[in-house]
């Protein structure tokens, strides 16, 4: 038996989400005294690196780099049977979410998606995940022979302390894909929001898109990703993929700086799992202050440039 982790990649490189999933899988493997086996699919340049994050073996199935959930699930299910997987681990990303349910059905496995704890094996197989858009945490008990878990990002920091693994080629499953990927468009240069450690987010307090430079300069100084409240995206001031909250992207960065955002319950739903929250708002009664670790009551047009300058001074100092 073994723990199988699917290490996803983007354009041929395994990144943070994959390293976190392997780190998590290593911990599960240790808990269950089983080997940790990583699988990559496609043309992956740095698969051997997965060894450093704890994979005992790294398997690789050749394929083109276009994502087709039907094909990938078949390949993962095939590997799961080959290595007699007890638990299959995925990243809780657009890729992992497209695969998790399908694998659970194909393999008759129990599934907990977006988990944020290690399994508790003292009474059956129990694992925690956030529900009600971050307003509660539920403990799931999975009762099947095989389990599928997708791991919430930014929850188990990637830990590299092993050595590079030898990559083993495995048989590629045949699949007549019905999907043709035409293009993959990454938002320019910036850090993808769901993976970002630091996020600077703006609300209606900015008054209009022409004022966003103030925010972008702070984000750049910090090396942070940018986000926004729903009305900001709805008004077209910022692209939709920046919209965070209950009906947008849910994130949990180490630092979330909310500027000119009132802190409506639907907004908090997507960000209240952030480790540290800073709120900048001119209204001392803004509800967001109740959900913040640090608050600055002041006009964002004055405060934010000062903060940017302070960040730059700090960065130059180190």
């Amino acid at each position, binding site marked *: 038996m073994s723990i199988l982790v699917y290490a996803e990649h983007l354009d041929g490189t395994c990144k943070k989400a994959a390293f976190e999933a392997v780190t998590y899988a290593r911990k599960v493997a240790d808990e269950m005294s089983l080997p940790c086996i990583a699988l990559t699919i496609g043309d992956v340049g740095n698969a051997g690196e997965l060894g450093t994050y704890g994979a005992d073996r790294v398997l690789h199935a050749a394929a083109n780099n276009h994502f087709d*959930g*039907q094909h990938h*699930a078949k390949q993962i299910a095939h590997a799961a049977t080959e290595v007699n997987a007890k638990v299959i681990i995925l990243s809780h*990303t*657009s890729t992992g*979410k*497209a695969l*998790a*349910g399908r*694998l*659970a*059905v*194909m393999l008759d496995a*129990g*599934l907990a*998606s*977006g988990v944020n704890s290690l399994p508790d094996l003292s009474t059956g197989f129990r694992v925690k995940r956030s*529900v*009600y858009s971050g307003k*509660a*945490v*539920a*403990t*799931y*008990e*999975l009762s*099947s022979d095989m389990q599928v878990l997708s791991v919430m990002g930014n929850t188990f920091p990637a830990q590299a302390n092993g050595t590079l693994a030898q990559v083993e080629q495995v048989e590629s499953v045949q699949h007549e894909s019905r*999907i*043709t990927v*035409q*293009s*993959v*468009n*990454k938002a320019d240069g*910036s850090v*993808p929001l769901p993976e970002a*450690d*630091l996020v600077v987010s703006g609300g209606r307090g900015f008054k209009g898109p022409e004022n966003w430079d103030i925010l972008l300069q702070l984000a750049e100084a910090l090396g942070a*990703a940018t986000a926004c409240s729903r009305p900001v995206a709805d008004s077209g001031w910022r692209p939709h*993929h920046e919209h965070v909250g*209950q*009906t947008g992207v849910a994130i949990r960065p*180490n630092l979330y700086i909310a500027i000119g955002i009132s802190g409506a*319950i639907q907004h908090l*739903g997507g960000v209240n*799992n952030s480790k540290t929250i*800073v709120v900048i708002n001119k209204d001392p009664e803004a509800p967001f*202050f*109740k*959900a*913040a*670790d*640090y*608050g600055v009551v*002041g*006009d964002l047009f004055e*405060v934010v440039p*000062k*903060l940017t300058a302070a*960040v730059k001074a700090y960065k130059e100092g180190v």
Partner: protein
Amino acid sequence: MNAMKQLVCISKTPDTTSRISFVEDSTKFDTDGIQYIMNPYDEWYALVKALEVKEQVGGSITVINVGDASSEQIIRKALAIGADDAIRVDKLAEDAGDVAAQIAAVAKNEAYDLIYTGKETIDYNNSEVGSRIAAHLDLPFISYANALSIEGDTFTIARDIEGGSEVLTIQAPFVLSASKGLAEQRIPNMRGIMMAKRKPLEVKEAVAYQATSKIVEYEKPEGRTSCKLVDPDNMNELVRLLHEEAKVI
């Protein structure tokens, strides 16, 4: 393009402003005083996109819900917005796998061209039902679709990926989950509401299902204890706190 037979899966979820609490030793969601709505992703994006597709190529839209009689309010709303008919599988689902198994059991015999779900429900946030239905029916699944257009018999779909979007082409049949941007919310009008009362709603018996997951306990995350206010004229102090105290920069 031929007329399309479309199925839209709709879920009943607590209103977004609901206060979330638990009863029976934190094992059950406290439904007291909770207002229910149609899951926003299902209503705003999936259903409206199905209407747009029907307006372009013709065909029919069925909405399906797995739930008890208390779901009829959201089903009627979906009919008022423009669905042609509805199916309710009479069961309080045990888990997301149950919902998908029930819907797949219905869809199996119907040869739908397109099956829609929302990208997730705002209560359990599982994001599982679409890919599970696709697995049961052995169909492709396009997650997080944010744009869809049709030309000839080819669909061009953009879907959210981390920090960007992917554009792909596909032919029916397939399953998709709807994300923001796929369509613009529509408000039912008086005529729609009147017509909805006469549209067919079929209640079906559930098929057998063996649940493999169960929620055994809920907790509320620890709230933030206090907010430390920093002088707006002293942003060096904020940077110091973030570095030395919070250790996030």
